[in-house]
């Protein structure tokens, strides 16, 4: 018996059982090449079980409240256009894919302006873009030691498929909207995104995760994404996570960035009872770059965890990572930033910063940089600060007549500004700023 891995939990058994009924619903899809990966993944999951805090990567992330829950396989739910209206962005009304409980919704989606980009549900792409799907799907996200990635791979059926052909510059950003609505029983859903940018293409992408209904609804969203940024291509991805305060959201992202390419990722985490993001970037060609930004705001008893891993496998690549967040009430933040500079990766620049502000005395943050550097001609720096609003700043504002509460809110926004000012899509930036101001004044 392996106590260590939480293998014998009822929840594990339930997923394994659910997989059997899931398989029978797959129809045509059970004959694809990908289905072999699913079978491999479920047995890997059965082997791994769920992690415990004895596991180094889960040391500060206690998921026992999640393990006590029961979930059933997601079914679609009735969500109408007016319900998703608050989550839409100006300028992206005609280029969006919408998923409800992980299942593509053609009625809610709109692709009138596709800008030469192939964007559709992964389920459709299995048939219509077989070549690209077979080439990339499940080829990059490693699940051998990652139970959540394994579980996603086992249940992966739908999600977004995006392919930007060579030299295609998408004039408008594309929006992926994942809506959750758990009206009766808590569901589990495993959306899988495959995003491929061919050589010298460019795309701005916004992915947002919201819910309709009340904050108390429980569900389990287990996302995974594979992202391939081809040579000289540029991808800018902003991901907003605002799940219900009772939801469990896990996210595994694996990006490969080829030579002369650039990947910019901004993750904003606001919701979830437990939210854990694993964001992994690997440079596969020289002179590639990545910017990894994160912002989080937690209150109540939320647990927000960001694990990042940047693999400098080749020379002359730059990574720039900045995470900033606020922890209020009894919330708990975890940041673990791993950077690996392999022996061949000379002339690497790797910069990493994590700054957290504790608004409440009862909030906690565990921040850990993890640099492993095996090349000698590199420029790497990291830092982590956990602080409070500076009294001097507060006094200066108040001494001009600004009330204490307002002054605090202004300083909070200012702190987050480093992240927000780097969000290039104006409508996204403005909406987020408004949202944050709203949370601070609640």
């Amino acid at each position, binding site marked *: 018996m392996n106590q260590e891995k939480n293998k014998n939990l009822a929840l594990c058994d339930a997923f394994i059982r659910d997989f059997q009924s899931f398989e029978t619903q797959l129809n045509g899809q059970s004959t694809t090449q990908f289905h072999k990966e699913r079978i491999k993944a479920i047995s890997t999951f059965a082997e791994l079980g769920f992690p415990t805090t004895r596991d180094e990567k889960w040391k500060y992330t206690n998921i026992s409240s999640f393990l006590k829950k029961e979930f059933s396989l997601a079914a679609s739910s009735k969500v109408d256009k007016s319900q998703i209206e608050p989550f839409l962005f100006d300028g992206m009304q005609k280029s969006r894919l919408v998923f409800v409980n992980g299942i593509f919704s053609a009625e809610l989606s709109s692709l009138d302006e596709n800008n030469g980009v192939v964007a559709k549900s992964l389920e459709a792409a299995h048939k219509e873009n077989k070549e690209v799907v077979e080439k990339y799907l499940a080829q990059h996200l490693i699940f051998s030691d990652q139970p959540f990635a394994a579980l996603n791979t086992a249940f992966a059926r739908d999600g977004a498929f995006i392919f930007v052909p060579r030299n295609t510059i998408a004039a408008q950003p594309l929006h992926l909207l994942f809506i959750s609505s758990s009206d009766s029983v808590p569901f589990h859903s495993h959306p899988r995104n495959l995003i491929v940018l061919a050589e010298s293409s460019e795309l701005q992408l916004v992915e947002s995760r919201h819910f309709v209904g009340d904050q108390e609804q429980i569900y389990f969203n287990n996302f995974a994404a594979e992202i391939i940024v081809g040579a000289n291509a540029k991808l800018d991805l902003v991901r907003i996570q605002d799940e219900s305060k009772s939801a469990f959201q896990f996210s595994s992202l694996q990006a490969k960035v080829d030579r002369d390419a650039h990947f910019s990722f901004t993750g904003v985490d606001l919701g979830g009872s437990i939210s854990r993001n694993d964001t992994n970037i690997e440079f596969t060609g020289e002179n590639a770059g990545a910017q990894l930004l994160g912002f989080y705001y937690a209150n109540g008893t939320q647990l927000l965890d960001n694990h990042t891993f940047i693999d400098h496998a080749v020379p002359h690549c730059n990574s720039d990572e900045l995470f900033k967040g606020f922890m209020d009430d009894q919330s708990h933040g975890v940041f673990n930033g791993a950077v690996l500079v392999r022996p061949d990766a000379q002339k690497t620049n790797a910069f990493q910063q994590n700054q957290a502000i504790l608004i409440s005395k009862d909030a906690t943050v565990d921040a850990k940089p993890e640099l492993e550097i095996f090349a000698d001609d590199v420029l790497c720096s990291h830092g982590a600060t956990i602080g409070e609003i500076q009294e001097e700043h507060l006094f200066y*504002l108040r001494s001009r*007549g*600004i009330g204490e509460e*307002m002054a605090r809110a*202004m300083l909070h926004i*200012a*702190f*987050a500004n*480093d992240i927000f000012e780097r969000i290039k899509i104006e409508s996204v930036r403005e909406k987020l700023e408004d949202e944050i101001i709203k949370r601070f004044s609640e």
Partner: protein
Amino acid sequence: MISIKNLHASVEGTEILKGINLEVKPGEVHAVMGPNGSGKSTLANILAGREEYEVTEGSVSFLGNDLLEMAPEDRAREGLFLAFQYPVEIPGVSNANFLKTALNAIREHRGEDAMDAMEFLKLVKDRLQLVEMDQKFLQRSVNVSFSGGEKKRNEIFQMAVLEPKLGILDETDSGLDIDALKIVANGVNKLRSPERSFIVVTHYQRLLDYIVPDFVHVLAKGKIIKSGGAELAHYLEENGYDELLNANGKAAA
């Protein structure tokens, strides 16, 4: 305007102010001079409401209110303004947003409507001219990467926008070259009126050639040891503080 009586204050158990008495009437300009570490900034900061100083004795009445009981923002709203000796840099808060928020908080307190963006812009453009500052400073973060002189001018600019009843200038002249000094002094002089008072804290008599005070006080070791008219500043310029300090030391002994 303001009446300071027997003010004693300490920081971390050390007494810094040892019985300050100062009375300022509307329209008056009082200069407070004194050597390094004599307690000038401590006095200014206590008046503005800084919490790290502990007032152990005495009272301060400002326009009839018990100043020491008021929160810093309420002091500002009632018309007190401190131009800091060392203005802090606040990354991410734009000068314009900061000032507009402050101005509207003060206006609300006075029962006036909030200023809209247009009116505000008109006002600040006018006040920027007063201290010869470029409009580009509005969009920059408060004091961030401002030169020493720019920070001081920004303080006077804020004062010109907020139009306080009592302006306290803590060494606004220190480190300024003569041109910048003239600009700052000119800004202050334009704000002088029969209703508005100033307490000008300075090290150097030179400033007082440009902002001519009605009264000069010498603060040493936490006490005002001598008060006089503008001529006292000239006396100090010629004789330094030493003679005065020695005389005071003897008197105390």
